């Protein structure tokens, strides 16, 4: 019976609404009854008139009029009742909207509590410190090279520079840009042959 938990308790509010609705139903049923009487009196008046009993027909019609006025009155009452019921139901909706807002607000507050400005500042500061610390470590590590190592680094640098200086000395034979319009097959064959020669040199 897990479903039982989701069933709300019957409050006095619910009972009041139900009472109102039952009253409304009673009025509706009453109207139905009056409508039946109305129709009946109409028929009676007609038959009396057909039988030539004018005064009795008039009595029936008078009764009919009275019932009609009753019907009008109950219409008014029914309207009031229905308005009341709708108003109550709408207020209930409003209450639930309010509760929703309240809950949302509470949650927002809670989240803000976890995330106050001090904490954010502290967090940022810590991040900053950590970065600073990392930088220091980096510096320390780069400074911890021995003079020998420094020398070898310098040597390597010189070597690299020398390599670069040497490179322009070697003749790089670049392929010539074609000066004629490409002709099918034969031209492409010779072009690929030329490249085949040059690749080893550039490498």
């Amino acid at each position, binding site marked *: 019976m897990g479903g039982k938990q989701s069933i709300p308790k*019957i409050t006095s509010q619910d009972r009041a609404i139900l009472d109102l609705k039952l009253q409304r139903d009673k009025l*509706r049923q009453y109207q139905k009854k009056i409508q039946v009487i109305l129709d009946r009196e109409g028929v009676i008046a007609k038959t009396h008139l057909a039988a030539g009993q004018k005064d009795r027909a008039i009595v029936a019609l008078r009764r009919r009029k009275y019932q009609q006025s009753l019907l009008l009155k109950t219409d008014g009452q029914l309207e009031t009742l229905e308005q009341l019921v709708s108003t109550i139901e709408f207020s209930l909706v409003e209450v639930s909207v309010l509760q929703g807002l309240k809950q949302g607000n509470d949650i927002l507050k809670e989240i803000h509590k976890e995330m106050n400005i001090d904490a954010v500042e502290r967090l940022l500061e810590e991040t900053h410190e950590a970065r600073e610390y990392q930088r220091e470590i980096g510096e320390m590590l780069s400074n911890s090279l021995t003079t020998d190592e420094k020398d070898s680094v310098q040597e390597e640098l010189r070597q690299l520079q020398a390599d670069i200086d040497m490179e322009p000395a070697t003749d790089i034979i670049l392929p010539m840009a074609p000066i004629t319009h490409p002709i099918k097959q034969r031209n492409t064959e010779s072009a690929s042959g030329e490249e085949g020669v040059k690749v080893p040199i550039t490498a």
Partner: protein
Amino acid sequence: MSLTTHTTTSGFILPSIHSAPPFFTQQPNPTTQSIATDQWIHLIQAYARHNRLFVLRVEDAEISGNDWDEVLRNERINRKLLPMHLTQILAKMVFSNVATYDPPKQTRSVLLYWRLPDEWAEVLHSWAVSTAQLNTILTFYDITDPPVKSELSGIPVSLLRKAINILVKSGRAQLIGVADGEGVRLFSGGR
């Protein structure tokens, strides 16, 4: 006389067996009788569903001029179902749970289950969902006589109560009682 189907004024098609005179008399052979009774039950249920009739009384076979005339009598072959015979059919219907004596403890009037109470419960629930009446307090009158006609219009309160009780058991409804009457609140419920 050839046996043909017959369409009534309400648009219900009576089966050809309804034009067979023996159909209206009790058969001495129990096997034949049982088959005829089954046919009767089938016919009664179909007719009730077609015309949204909820109650069948033995009285309906005794006197004419009611909702069941078209089925319980066949003027074309001058036959009618005898009250005794109907009583037995009703007994079998109650026995096979397609009807129940209502009010209980008598055998002259039954509530027809052309939808079983479980099915009515589903109908009620889906009606409440489709008309957005979940979590609202409804009176029985709201359900049996809604401003917009529904599947549940005119459902007898005793049958409605059964359907509601089924929903209550599965946690999808809640009965509220006050001095003046009763109401029900439906929930979307688990499932």
